[in-house]
């Protein structure tokens, strides 16, 4: 008898990350295919904000509200989640493949000796087992991976799955948790506030060496207008024009926005490794032979400093 799907919510400073809603929505779809319940697990924050998760199909919401879990540390979280798993006995665990979700799911899978599919872009159930679709070889291959064993853990790539509302009973259960033996000590956190997080943004506008310097204002304006994030190629980061956290690609972030606009980026394979799963790709480059055009949905040949402000003006007209 199926014991249900457990979706792990992720909060930062008491606010759920977008991938939480994606994990719940996907968890609900999996629970429906398995004919079982969906339980949401919230760590380190309040009952109040947790109620909201009922809207995404959670039948039960477990809340472990203790100060020790407010900031994520691998050992405290793994201890607590492993305890909950041993009590709840879920057949499937879904988490986001955010920095935190990847870290936790990897350690948890080893603790539970359980199969894990990382960075999934699609999930389905076959004969009561999960099949996860995930990208490999820097996005050059999509592989279907069959999971075998219990529980089956899937960490889903942010921005790859739909958020769907469906009412769940959402009964809240407060847990008394013991974080157990821990060795990691949280010292401090520094967050740059303001702009949308690259991996969660619906629109990403990126600049490369073609930006010619650290003045990214033309693409920042376009990104702001679209509530998007600004990314960069490695060349732009190496030049010191942007911080390493803006880098998109194999040694940077993997993004899957609905719209990716590459400005002054040639389209190296290592760059594609970070954005090939984007919905629509637009390339703006003055070199008609630039490889980026071969993988773009729309390309414009021309000077980005002329084109980007014009595009921004045209979009303003729409709004």
């Amino acid at each position, binding site marked *: 008898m199926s014991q249900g799907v457990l979706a792990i919510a992720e909060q930062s400073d008491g606010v759920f*990350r977008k991938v939480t809603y994606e994990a719940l929505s996907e968890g609900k779809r999996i629970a429906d295919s398995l004919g079982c319940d969906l339980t949401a697990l919230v760590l380190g924050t309040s009952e109040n904000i947790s109620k909201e998760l009922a809207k995404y199909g959670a039948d039960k919401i477990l809340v472990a509200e203790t100060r020790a879990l407010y900031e994520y540390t691998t050992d405290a979280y793994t201890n607590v989640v492993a305890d909950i798993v041993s009590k709840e006995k879920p057949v499937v665990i879904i988490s986001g493949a955010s920095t935190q979700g990847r870290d936790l799911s990897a350690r948890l899978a080893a603790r539970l*000796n359980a199969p894990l599919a990382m960075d999934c872009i699609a999930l389905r159930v076959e004969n009561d087992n999960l099949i996860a679709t995930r990208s490999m070889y820097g996005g050059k291959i999509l592989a279907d991976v069959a999971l075998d064993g219990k529980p089956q853990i899937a960490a889903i790539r942010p921005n790859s799955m739909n958020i769907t509302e469906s009412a769940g009973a959402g009964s809240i259960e407060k847990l008394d948790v013991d974080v157990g033996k821990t060795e990691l000590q949280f*010292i401090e956190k520094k967050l740059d506030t303001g702009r949308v997080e690259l991996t969660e943004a619906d629109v990403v506008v990126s600049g490369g060496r073609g930006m010619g310097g650290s003045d990214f204002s033309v693409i920042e304006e376009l990104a702001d207008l679209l509530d998007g994030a600004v990314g960069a190629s490695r060349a732009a980061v190496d030049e010191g024009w942007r911080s390493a956290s803006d880098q998109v690609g194999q040694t940077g972030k993997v993004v899957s926005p609905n*719209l990716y606009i590459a400005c002054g980026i040639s389209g190296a394979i290592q760059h594609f*490794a970070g954005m090939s799963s984007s919905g629509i790709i637009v390339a703006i480059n003055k070199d008609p032979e630039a490889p980026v055009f071969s993988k773009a949905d729309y390309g414009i040949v*021309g000077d980005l400093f002329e084109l980007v402000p014009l595009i921004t003006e045209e979009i303003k007209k729409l709004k």
Partner: protein
Amino acid sequence: MKGRLQKVEIIVLLKQVPATESFVEIADDGVSIKTDRVNWVINPYDEFAIEEAIQIKEAHGGSVTVISVGPEKASEAIRTALAMGADKGVLINDPAAEKCDCLGIARILSEALRNVPFDLIIAGQRAVDDDNFQVGPAVAEFLSIPHISMVIKEEIADGKIRCHKVVEGGTVILEAPLPALFTTQRGLNEPRYASLPGIMKAKRKPLDIKTLADIGLDAAKAGKPKTKIVSMKFPPERKDGRIIEGESAQAKAAELVRALSEEAKVI
């Protein structure tokens, strides 16, 4: 308090992977890639690990051992690490290991390290072939030591390691007692190239090749894989890609915005 310099025994987990520029083709079995035309390199995140290990050794003293589970060919990658400045290499080469998934590989690595004294293990955040992000944390779990992932800066003092790790939108600083494991993120360092004298020296450095039996692991125990690739395909091509033409930059911009709004419906 500034810690007394203390030798650090470091282990680096290294995987040999196809270079990103490699042309990837799906093999006839449909669940693996053709390897004949692949150019094999050290996983770029493991290069950061090797570089950091050498820098720690240079600052504190100690030694760097590189360990890999892989085919015979992976010894080339280990030699490169030795040429960069690592001291010792271990390759675990066993047909039974080929069938392992991440947990199996992590089990083998942790068994191989069980009786080796170490203070620190450094792994890549992920291998750029399977992109799994799993082996580092799993090795730490099997060895019951703490781990910190996605590290861009570390300091070792007084038997502890303090790491700056990147998270969405910022950085977090965490501290762990040694022995510990951390995984690398770009920004940590710029890996050096192997120098010619380094390459000459590497030829005389020890590189042990071991089987699972040598590390006391029953091949059957390495575990039946719990994850298995059942099919592979290429991502859908962007067939309908087109270049937006127009008389002027203004016209092209207007046409792009129209297409994004009316055809693609993304704005």
